[in-house]
């Protein structure tokens, strides 16, 4: 190793070889007579299958009356059916080499299973049983209620959770997306009837999408699915109404006071667009140049040049009805203001000057290449297919993604930055010790201070 400047001419890296075409697995798409949409993709390198049964209803559908109810419903779905106890479900899973997850986000509830392909019919039957016959045992609810309250208490000591929760409140106001977690009192108020009601109305075939990837033959898998899910009939839920998110102008700062912290969690964001917006591709590309990738400008600036932080990143976050853009970094307390200055400097640079041809080219290759890495794993294929069919994106979304990214220009990036990197109206959240950072916060706009429970202090 040398540390002195070397006079030897540097050798250029070898050029890339000719690119191989990327083929997404052929898929079989059907809507069964009961309205259940089925998407199957074969991937036979490993003798496993992954399946996800989605319902297009989540916590946003109940946020106005019972925040987190969809999540607690999903938790209970795995804890008993008309014919299986919780213990039997867990033992059945193990016998099939399977993992099960049940969850709910803002827009979607999901039952996810991966297991050995040799047990695929048993796995399908279990998924159908959970989707149709959940029994919501009372004692299981009480245990999970306590679990949820304890985990909420821990979440309220976690800087990244508190930052995300506050930003969603600020950006979404009265819209259901404002609420990412219930209060303890709201968890106390869940009833068995409330959970059953959500389940009965939303876990229905016309509201559902089943995506399966793995070692099977699509023809016979489709037959099995028809046999297993065919007799299931229930109507689609009524669409949930939501008020519009607020409009905001000017920068504001929201400081969440967490005593004793040795870092400041910085998060800034503004409203943006959903995946269905035609501008999504150029936003994604602009984001990767700004702060969405390891080699991005923000990472180079505040990590590799200034050493303020370990893993700063920006991202375009797409929910079904609305999207928002955000950037975050956990930094030592002394540089909270300096970090925000650089975050906005890099946004403004993206908004005022076109990116160089090298940066553009590099970012396009990054986006199109990384998109394809997922084609080699069951989870990657399943994740991309779920996106396409849950968000009702065009059928050729996966096949045309790379071409769409490669067609973007420096002007597209500039336009996306001007539209979505809204530095002048960014809503800023700082989570940390107020004695350490309140003065720095005030440099960026009017400051409101909250405790970990969202109370103004």
């Amino acid at each position, binding site marked *: 190793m040398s540390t002195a400047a070397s006079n030897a001419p540097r050798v250029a890296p070898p050029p890339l070889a000719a690119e191989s075409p990327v083929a997404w697995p052929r898929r079989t798409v059907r809507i069964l007579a009961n309205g259940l949409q089925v998407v199957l993709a074969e991937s036979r390198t490993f003798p496993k299958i992954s399946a996800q049964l989605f319902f297009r209803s989540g916590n946003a559908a109940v946020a106005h009356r019972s925040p987190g109810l969809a999540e607690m419903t999903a938790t209970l779905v795995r804890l008993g059916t008309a014919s299986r106890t919780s213990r039997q479900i867990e033992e059945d899973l193990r016998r099939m080499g399977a993992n099960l997850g049940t969850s709910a986000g803002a827009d979607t509830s999901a039952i996810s299973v991966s297991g050995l392909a040799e047990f695929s019919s048993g796995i399908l039957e279990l998924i159908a049983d959970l989707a149709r016959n959940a029994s919501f045992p009372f004692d299981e609810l009480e245990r999970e209620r306590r679990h949820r309250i304890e985990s909420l208490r821990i979440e309220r000591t976690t800087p990244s959770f508190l930052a995300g929760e506050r930003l969603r409140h600020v950006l979404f106001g009265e819209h259901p997306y404002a609420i990412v977690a219930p209060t303890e009192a709201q968890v106390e108020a869940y009833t068995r009837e409330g959970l059953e009601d959500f389940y009965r109305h939303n876990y229905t075939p016309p509201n559902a999408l089943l995506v399966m990837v793995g070692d099977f033959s699509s023809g016979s898998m489709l037959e099995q699915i028809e046999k297993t899910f065919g007799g299931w009939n229930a109507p689609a839920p009524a669409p949930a109404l939501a008020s519009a998110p607020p409009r905001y102008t000017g920068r504001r700062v929201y400081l969440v006071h967490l005593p004793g912290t040795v870092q400041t969690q910085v998060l800034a964001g503004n409203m943006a667009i959903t995946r269905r917006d035609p501008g999504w591709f150029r936003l994604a590309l602009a984001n990767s140049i700004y702060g969405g990738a390891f080699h991005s400008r923000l990472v180079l600036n505040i990590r590799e040049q200034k050493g303020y932080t370990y893993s700063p990143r920006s991202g375009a976050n797409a929910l079904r009805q609305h999207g928002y853009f955000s950037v975050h970094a956990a930094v030592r307390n002394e540089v909270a203001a300096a970090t925000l200055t650089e975050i906005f400097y890099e946004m403004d640079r993206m908004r005022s000057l076109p990116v160089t041809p090298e940066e553009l080219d590099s970012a396009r290759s990054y986006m199109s*290449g990384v998109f394809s890495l997922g084609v080699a794993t069951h989870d990657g294929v399943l994740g991309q297919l779920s996106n396409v069919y849950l968000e009702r994106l065009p059928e050729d979304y996966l096949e045309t993604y790379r071409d769409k990214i490669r067609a973007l220009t420096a002007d597209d990036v500039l336009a996306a930055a001007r539209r979505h990197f809204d530095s002048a109206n960014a809503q800023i959240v700082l989570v940390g010790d107020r004695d350490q950072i309140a003065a720095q916060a005030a440099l960026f706009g009017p400051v409101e201070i909250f405790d970990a429970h969202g109370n103004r202090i």
Partner: protein
Amino acid sequence: MNALHIPVEHITLANGLRVVAAPDRTAPIVTVGVYYQIGFRLEPRGRSGFAHLFEHMMFQGSENAGKMEHIRLINSSGGLLNGTTNYDITNYFESVPSNALERVLWLEADRMRALKVDDENLRNQRDVVKEEVRVNVMNQPYGGFPWLDLPPIAFRNWPNAHNFYGDFEDLDAATLEDVRSFFRTYYAPNNAVLLMVGDFEPATAFSLARRYFEAIPAGPPPPRADISEPPQAEERRGAVDEKFGTLPAIAIGYTMPPRESPDWYAAGVLDRVLHGGRAGRVYRRLVLEKQIAVEADGGADMLETNGPTQMVTRLFHKPEYSADDTIAAFDEVIEELHQKEIEPDELEPVKVKLRSDFYSMLEGGMGAYMPRFGLMHYLACFTLFDGDPNRVNTILDGFLAVTPAQAQAAAQKYFVLRNRAIVTRRPVAKGAAQ
């Protein structure tokens, strides 16, 4: 039984670099890794955290690819990259479209041959590492629990017992000369293995590996620190303050049998009987039945370590129960393993699950966008620790052959007080919740 066969080919270059190739034509993608046989267990005394700090320096530039260029060249080839520091290994890996294979090998060879860093890089990465420690340990509920808490309690020999992330004064004391010397000592080709998994012809891959790596000179065999532990006579206990979290937590670690011994396989199966999700005995007893704990999980890093290693159970318990109540309930579960053989109708499903989990690890292992990371990782460990990457095709057999009697005997021998350590995390405040 295990029906999966992974095709594996391997060669050793003249400089001692081992090269392993596993072709997989699922998609036009390759995952490449270079694993060095040096981890935080083996870092120099008085330089806690150095192996990890050094890992950061490997991204700071080499003779023909300056600072950030390594990252930019991988990203702009359409790929992702990372590195991690572990007990006995440090790895650097990339997943890229297959047309970038040659470029990746060039980059990895360049930094193996001629790392080029300066004081400014070192100062910068020292700051970055401190923020990494703050975000992952000092500013998080249960940060470092229990991977940083248990070793100083469980072990007596410094390599096994020190702060692996590093004390800040040790990080501050690190010099460029330390970086240089560490590189010379441990980053020679004869202390490493190069892995390629994915869409290529093995002959082509080997020839590219020769082109870029064969001219790198071998180093003297690196010194091997003595990582053996003196015999333990009694249970060891310690306590750590929990600054943010609101629940008391306990970690219980049993030191595992030596790698590849018959008891090691048996203990690996016992780990899955005890843990292994909600069907595991610990979760079932403490969370579902007795409801003393709110959360319970555990496991052992068996395949990827090559020295004293613990199977660790983590319990987050209700404040209305004491640590002693919780440990007593856990002890009943262990006592049952001593007293009674596992019935076949429990053991067989545990083995099915073990096989299924192994396949999943080979297939992914680091998220959906780092295909075959787990396969690469195991190939590296089997090469460096056991001298045979093909162990990936036979290792399951040892676990699947474990009998109830062998499992019981291993529990009686290893899951005993004189082989365990316990750390408790006690919330210091009522927490933000109150």
